[in-house]
């Protein structure tokens, strides 16, 4: 009997000890004197190209700041789904990384509203950043006169990719300029027996929608959709959504993601695809990471129909969370991210262009040189899918509406859902 007693006590004590040991471990991690010099940089750049770009910026950082140690807290996963889930739980627990990556614009609004981010106006003033970034960009990422992030790169969303030989066979010369022309061309391709427009999974339709909205409404009306008292119920929006419906009726069967959809164009199975400019790397890069195609011959591009002269942008940026354990280190990182040297090291590798106007143009070739030219001269509009104009709730509501529309093709209901999404967004 005695021995059973002892055994029971031993087991339960051991159990309790395990519990408290778990509790103790956490505390040790966040404290410690060594952590003061470390700069924890949180991003989702782990893929080919982007990780190389991050490494190049990291080398510049190490050279300029020998007293800080760069700590790479990258979380894998395209467009940062997993990374953002982890990040929001860290911020909720008030244990922010020193600096984290986020899409510039409305995606950061939730953090800004709940006071998790520090305004960076002091840094913009110190480095005179308002002079080197385009004024429209500053306007579109400011919240009540405050800027909360440093944009490192710019991607373009409204790009129409096409296969020149498929177009030729269908009797089309040159990319369509307007949405109406686009629809006529889609019809011509259909008659020639190829897939007129390739699409991927649901999010690529949201991506398509933003280009169609911009092309149908025009830049000013599109930008007005994201201001207070925006009118989503008017007839112009209805017309744009009708266009979206017509365009979708020419789409091939949905592919698993954007790459297989882009590949259909490269392989000559499909004529058109609307995707952001990360598709260029996929088309152009040698076969390990891309398709090894030649630009202007195997594939070509133009502004998506009706959007010539407007640059629909999205941008990766870095922030300064309130209560960052190593604030000085984070600011040192932001300075590298904002600098000409840092942006010119990062962007050619990532396949994007710098947000700064004074970039070294000779570094950007082929598509990127066209991109840079457009960035310098175009009007700007923000992307929906990639977190510029709509906060996360709003974007998710739009995504849901697009998914449901894909099932029933009911334009009136679709528009109602978009009106409701705008009203309930709390933006």
């Amino acid at each position, binding site marked *: 009997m005695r021995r059973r007693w002892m055994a029971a006590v031993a087991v339960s004590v051991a159990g309790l000890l395990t519990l408290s040991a778990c509790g103790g471990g956490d505390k040790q991690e966040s404290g410690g004197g060594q952590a003061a010099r470390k700069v924890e940089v949180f991003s989702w750049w782990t893929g080919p190209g982007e990780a190389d770009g991050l490494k190049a910026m990291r080398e510049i950082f190490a050279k300029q700041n020998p007293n800080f140690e760069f700590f790479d807290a990258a979380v894998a996963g395209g467009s940062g789904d997993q990374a953002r*889930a982890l990040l*929001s739980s860290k911020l909720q627990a008030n244990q922010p990384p020193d600096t984290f990556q986020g899409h510039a614009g409305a995606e950061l609004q*939730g953090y800004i509203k709940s006071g998790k981010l520090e305004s960076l106006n002091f840094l913009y003033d110190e480095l005179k950043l308002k002079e080197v970034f385009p004024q429209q960009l500053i306007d579109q990422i400011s919240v009540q006169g405050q800027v909360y992030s440093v944009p490192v790169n710019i991607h373009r969303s409204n790009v129409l990719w096409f296969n020149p030989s498929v177009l030729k066979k269908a009797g089309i010369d040159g990319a369509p300029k307007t949405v109406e022309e686009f629809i006529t061309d889609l019809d011509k391709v259909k008659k020639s027996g190829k897939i007129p427009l390739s699409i991927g999974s649901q999010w690529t339709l949201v991506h398509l929608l933003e280009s169609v909205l911009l092309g149908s409404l025009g830049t000013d009306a599109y930008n007005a959709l994201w201001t207070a008292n925006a009118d989503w119920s008017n007839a112009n929006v209805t017309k744009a959504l009708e266009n979206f419906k017509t365009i979708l009726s020419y789409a091939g069967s949905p592919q*698993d993601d954007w790459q297989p959809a882009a590949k259909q164009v490269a392989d000559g199975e499909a004529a058109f695809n609307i995707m952001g400019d990360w598709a260029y790397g996929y088309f152009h890069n040698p076969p390990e990471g891309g398709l090894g195609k030649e630009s202007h011959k195997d594939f070509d591009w133009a502004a998506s129909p009706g959007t010539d002269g407007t640059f629909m942008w999205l941008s990766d940026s870095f922030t300064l969370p309130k209560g960052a354990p190593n604030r000085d280190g984070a600011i040192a990182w932001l300075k590298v991210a904002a600098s000409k040297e840092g942006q010119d090291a990062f962007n050619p590798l990532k396949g994007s262009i710098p947000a700064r106007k004074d970039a070294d143009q000779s570094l950007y070739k082929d598509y990127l040189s066209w991109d840079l030219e457009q960035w310098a001269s175009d009007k700007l509009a923000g992307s929906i899918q990639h977190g510029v104009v709509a906060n*996360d709730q709003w974007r998710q509501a739009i995504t849901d509406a697009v998914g*449901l529309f894909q099932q029933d093709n009911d334009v009136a209901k679709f528009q109602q859902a978009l009106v409701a999404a705008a009203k309930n967004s709390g933006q």
Partner: protein
Amino acid sequence: MTRVRRWLPGLLLVSPSIILIAVFVYGLLGWNFKLAMTDKHDEIAEIPGNFVGLENFTGIWSEERWGLSVRHAIVFTVVFVGGALVLGWLLAFLMEKGIRAESGFRAVYLFPMAVSFIATGVVWRWLMNSATGEHAVGLNRLFHYLGLDFLQWQWFRDPDWGMAAMALPAVWQMSGYIMALFLAGFRGVPEELREAARVDGCSEWGVYRHVVLPMLRPVTLSALIILGHISLKVFDLVVAVSGKQIITDVPATFMWTAVYDSHDPAKGATIASYIVLSVAVFVVPYLIWDARKGKRS
């Protein structure tokens, strides 16, 4: 004192697990229900959320996406549970006849159990590719080669019956396990009972109809419960096959986007509560039945 000595050691022995389960299962379950009854529709802001009663539970039914995901879950459950039960039963029935190399077959049918739903999903996503005609891959390609082009369809992208296609990998994976359950059930029927029935002039079909099948009822019930609760919670398979698309939306993927994309904890908790409740509909009657049976014997 001696009485205390009798039960206290046992209690001490199990108390760590009781405490852990109380906190991490039932405690968090309660916390989830509490969260579902608040208006905390913003994840990051540090507001506790006000009590709103069952508002979230009723409000969600006016959302089209919720209706769709419930419908999908029902279609998936019917096809998956029905398919796995029928197929598993059939395999066990054939096996029970004492075929040659039975253990080999048993292993082959059980193997899919060792694969995770994620791996199954990745393979079946390719098999169920929706491209048809000359671009077809996977099963559609196979149909093309066999000259059965009329069998090509959109699989999980079919707007009406896509979820039935989604259930196929799950049936493939779980029917071997159900076979093992039924096989044990068949073997549990004493040979004497069958003999007795035959002596009484029962046909071979009648032996199954009146002797074996009634004795399989408890096994069928366990199989139903195991499959049912897997089916209502299904998440990994759907995500591996199609990601978070409306076309294959189920409550668990809806919950995921509600929490991580819309940043709406109260809505996520509401959906989680509905999932728990729907599983409870399956499990609780079984537990009651099991407890009664235990008392009787």
